[in-house]
């Protein structure tokens, strides 16, 4: 334990009107069983939670934040993990070693939890109304009709639009943000004293995240619920926390108020963590200004459209089309990075896949001058040497049963570019190129960390000497410190090899760091495009402005201006057969900065 400024030791002992802590965690130690005996994964965590307080547990993956929450909820996976020392006092009662039946009474009524993924934490075959009333009736002695009206009240409280209708709907009929509102409503149903929110906004779009954080803060203020918020996002911490505990590898690194943490972090780790956080607006305009050289165009996309048919009815005929991408045009020059930004469902990943010829499309894609549409598999091979992809989840994009060396060698074998000793040398060189030791070649993907795996994926993408790399959210699954290293590697490779990137991301701060030009997508269409500094610095389109205003700022002193909630429902990309959405016409604002005329 390093530098624990423990308020619990100052407060209760002291003075006048200090309230009694709701929850106290003392010296909590958890071990997990491994073949070589118990391994300590949480080491002497201690904190106290006051009523009406928002405490953030912040840290990178593997720091033990979720484990702490699970221990408080009595949800530790048994028998793999067990508490070996410490106490968890809820209103003076120790929860460690409490029988499951007693724990069940506490859950929802005293302590409630919100999980990361709102889709998987709701039951897909029960209506929203049933799921809320289920919790109410399990813990309170009320009639079905009373429970239903209470459920309606709860939905109103979490500011759900047309709540009466929602009660009868199923989870899949709601958007991610609405689902998370339902999850919050369920968590708050029995008015718990403590609400634990485990990365409640990580799976959500940034504008939805802003709304949900706002909602949690409002509800917390009104009901006086104490909140333990688990997050890896320092922006979220700055936005919502009163106090912060920084954790790393199961240890409590630092405990302080949020202002103190950001103003003068007391440990090197926190300083490094804060330094690694990409900040929107931190890139000076001059540095980000694109170098307008007359370089060759690597990719040209003209009027690209991708539609997915929705079939139904008796004869399984196409009834509607999802217009995932609608007449999008752009080009990327050699050595340039174009970022595609937009929220989920905006079509950014679909464009990436079309570029890789992984799905059928309309319009024209020219890679290095060659049109890729309608090419046979054999002729596509040549094109595929020029464009490679890095996926979001490095673990999912590597074959778990093959050594990473074999996987990096695979593209070279497929294209018969090298064999024997030459192949080995080439693979070794690629590993060195991405900063991995040569002996890593013989290991399997599960033996690496997330950042190393992404390096393997980059090595594999580089194997064919591509001109363009499509990076689809390639750092989103990584911790910020690792993220910074991977971005640095990508930048280096670009400088040395003259690579072009199509950088697909939802993270505006990262986009600002890496991109020369930005295209903002909304419902499958480009609504704004231009040099990064212009689009992110002086956004013209209402949607871009909204997107930027929702980004949490990792600085409690400069909270972003209150987020303007959109009054519109999301534009649907489903259209009847034969019809198309209204085309967004772009208007030039000079210096290659274009935006759609109509407000989004």
């Amino acid at each position, binding site marked *: 334990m390093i530098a624990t400024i423990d308020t619990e030791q100052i407060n209760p002992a002291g003075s006048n009107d200090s309230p009694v802590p709701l929850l106290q965690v003392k010296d909590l130690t958890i071990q997990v069983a491994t073949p070589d005996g118990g391994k300590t994964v949480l080491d002497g965590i201690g904190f106290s939670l006051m009523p009406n307080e928002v405490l953030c547990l912040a840290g990178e993956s593997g720091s033990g934040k979720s484990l702490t929450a699970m221990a408080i909820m009595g949800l530790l996976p048994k028998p793999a993990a067990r508490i070996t020392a410490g106490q968890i006092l809820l209103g003076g009662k120790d929860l460690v070693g409490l029988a499951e039946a007693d724990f069940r009474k506490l859950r929802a009524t005293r302590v409630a939890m919100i999980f990361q993924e709102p889709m998987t934490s709701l039951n897909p075959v029960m209506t929203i109304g049933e799921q809320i009333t289920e919790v109410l009736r399990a813990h309170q002695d009320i009639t079905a009709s009373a429970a239903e009206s209470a459920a309606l009240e709860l939905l109103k409280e979490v500011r759900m639009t047309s709540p009466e209708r929602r009660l009868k709907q199923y989870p899949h009929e709601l958007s991610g943000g609405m689902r998370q509102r339902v999850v919050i409503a369920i968590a708050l149903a029995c008015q718990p004293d403590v609400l634990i929110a485990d990365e409640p906004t990580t799976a959500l779009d940034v504008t939805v995240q802003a709304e949900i954080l706002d909602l949690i803060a409002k509800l917390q203020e009104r009901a006086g619920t104490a909140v333990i918020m688990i997050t890896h996002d320092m922006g979220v911490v700055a936005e919502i926390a009163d106090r912060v505990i920084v954790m790393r590898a199961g240890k409590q690194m630092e405990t302080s108020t949020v202002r103190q943490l950001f103003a003068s972090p007391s440990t090197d780790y926190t300083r490094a963590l804060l330094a690694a956080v990409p900040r929107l607006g931190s890139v000076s305009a001059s540095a980000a200004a694109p170098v307008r050289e007359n370089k060759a165009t690597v990719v040209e996309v003209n009027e690209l459209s991708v539609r997915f048919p929705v079939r139904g009815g008796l004869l399984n005929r196409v009834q509607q089309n999802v217009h995932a991408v609608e007449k999008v045009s752009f080009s990327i020059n050699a050595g340039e990075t174009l970022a595609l930004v937009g929220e989920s469902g905006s079509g950014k990943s679909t464009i990436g896949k079309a570029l890789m010829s992984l799905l059928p499309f309309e319009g024209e894609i020219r890679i290095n001058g060659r049109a890729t549409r309608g090419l046979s598999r054999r002729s596509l091979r040549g094109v595929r040497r020029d464009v490679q992809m890095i996926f979001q989840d490095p673990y*999912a994009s590597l074959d778990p049963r093959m050594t990473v060396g074999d996987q990096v060698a695979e593209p070279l074998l497929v294209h018969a570019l090298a064999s024997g000793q030459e192949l080995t040398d080439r693979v070794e060189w690629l590993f060195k190129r991405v900063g991995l030791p040569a002996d890593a070649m013989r290991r399997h993907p599960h033996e690496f960390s997330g950042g190393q795996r992404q390096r393997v994926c980059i090595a594999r993408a580089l194997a064919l000497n591509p001109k363009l790399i499509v990076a689809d959210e390639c750092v989103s699954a990584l911790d910020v410190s690792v993220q910074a290293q991977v971005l640095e590697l990508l930048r280096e490779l670009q400088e040395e090899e003259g690579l072009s990137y199509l950088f697909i991301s939802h993270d505006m701060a990262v986009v600002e760091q890496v991109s020369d030009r930005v295209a903002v997508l909304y419902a499958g269409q480009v609504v704004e495009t231009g040099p990064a500094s212009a689009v992110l610095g002086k956004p013209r389109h209402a949607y871009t402005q909204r997107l930027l205003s929702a980004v949490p700022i990792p600085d409690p002193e400069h909270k972003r201006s209150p987020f303007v909630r959109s009054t519109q429902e999301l534009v649907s990309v489903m259209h009847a057969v034969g019809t198309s959405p209204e085309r967004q016409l772009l208007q030039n604002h000079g210096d290659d900065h274009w935006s759609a005329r109509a407000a989004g």
Partner: protein
Amino acid sequence: MSAQDGVTQTRSTGVFAQLLRRPGSAFGLALIALIVFCALTASHITPYDPNDQPFDGLTIEGAPIAPNADHWMGTDLLGRDLMSRLIVGAQTSLIIGVVANGLSAILGTAVGVAAGYFGGLTATVLMRFTDLMMAFPALLLAIVLAAIFEPSLWIVAMVIAMVNWVQMARVVYTETRSLTERDFIQAQVSMGSGPVRVLLRHVLPHLLSSIVVFSTLGISTTVLLEATLSYLGVGVQPPTPSWGNIIFENQTYFSSAPWLVFIPGVAILLMALAFNLVGDALRDILDPTLKGRHG
């Protein structure tokens, strides 16, 4: 040392040796060895002629003799030595269990993988055909097929394979579909790998565990299906013994001579268990992500 050698090296550190090192699979291998030994040397090691019906093979009342010093496993309803019949029956059952079941596994996997990977029309045609085969009464189909061809052990094996591949195809199809959606398969396609390479190197290895589990479970099913066919007169022709038809012939004596059903039943169970133990261990040994988790 090339990158390619990496795999061959880890794989070739004696899969067989690793199988022997695990108690479960060593036991399984021993059982399989015993069954194979019985099947190969049957005519030399049987204590009696399996088809001989000696005068003293039945009691005075004409009931089968319970296991004793002369007949270790007793005699069947015709007074034939059960142990001799069991040893000879190992031939039939091993061929049915391994060949018929292996064929159906191969057929089912091929159909399932092709349908799952290529999707679209290929999947529709293949899977609707699978559904059709599933809906068709398996026994009726087997009888028809067996009636068309001259009944022999090999024909019976083929017939059983033709009937049994559908379940495997279903399971493999579903798994291949979800596997095909995974990023690493997409990554392979986007670097220009052709379907054969993707299927053999990246899809099949992941299906191994389901295939192993499903085909070892199939062993007892196929052995019993053969017995059913024999019972209906379209399978292995009497008096050739098989473990399945020993059970069927003697089932009416179940209450008075339970060993006649119990002993061949245990034999079938042990064969399925043996293959299951080996298959299970094989799956773990070939899965690099499990390395080091088993002693």
